[in-house]
């Protein structure tokens, strides 16, 4: 099996010599994309709930890698801090607190699975067709350069084009969610006896 693989690779490189030589960054991009998509697919299909969380972790790390590949270091760092450091840990905690982590999830009905696969495949085909027909053009507006300093001044700016107000609105929303969580958790169950 291994020998076969090696032979195949050699053939490919021999064929590709005449065409454009594939650069290292292209290979890295395809690798990252493959990691992301395969682990996302495994995360939604595996029946072990804890494994699903770990596959989700790899998918999120793959997306962070794509951001690094695009040279958006700040967004990649935020992706790692928020998703890998926050949300995956939250999901793992909720798995441990609410379910039996070692057990398998009950098997889904085949009809339901088929329906979901058909629906998502049809949606995928529709969007891909639209993408293939549509030609995207560059906008006339110049965006800010995505450096950390620029993002910071833009986010907290109060002059025109600053995002100070949405920032505060989002923080109010977060506060409301926190208080709502506490209220829900404090509500004691009525005595059933």
């Amino acid at each position: 099996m291994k020998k076969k693989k090696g032979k195949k690779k050699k053939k490919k490189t021999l064929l590709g010599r005449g065409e454009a030589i594939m650069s290292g960054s292209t290979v890295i991009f395809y690798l990252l994309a493959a990691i992301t998509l395969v682990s996302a697919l495994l995360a939604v299909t595996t029946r072990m709930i804890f494994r699903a969380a770990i596959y989700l972790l790899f998918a999120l790390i793959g997306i962070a890698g794509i951001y690094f590949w695009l040279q958006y270091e700040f967004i990649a760092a935020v992706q790692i801090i928020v998703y890998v450091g926050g949300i995956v840990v939250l999901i793992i905690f909720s798995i441990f607190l609410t379910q039996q982590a070692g057990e398998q999830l009950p098997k889904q009905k085949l009809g339901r699975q088929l329906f979901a696969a058909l629906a998502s495949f049809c949606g995928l085909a529709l969007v891909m067709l639209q993408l293939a027909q549509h030609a995207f053009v560059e906008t006339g507006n110049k965006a800010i350069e995505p450096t950390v300093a620029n993002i910071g001044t833009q986010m907290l700016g109060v002059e025109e084009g600053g995002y100070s107000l949405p920032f505060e609105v989002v923080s109010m929303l977060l506060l409301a969610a926190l208080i709502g969580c506490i209220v829900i958790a404090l509500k004691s169950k009525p005595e059933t006896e």
Partner: protein
Amino acid sequence: MIEPGLYHMLFISTTLFFIGVYGFFTRRNLVTMLMSVELILNSVNLNFIAFNKYLWYDNE
């Protein structure tokens, strides 16, 4: 293989989105449904960033 561009990013984010949709439809468990929603949100983020990267008009 071709040099990656805007359409590659859009391909990845579309595929990720519909993987998330598939997971959302098939799962019964609330935690796993949340994980599928995370995938969907991440695909949207990837879309935003791809458009910013490749459709940024540079008039220098």
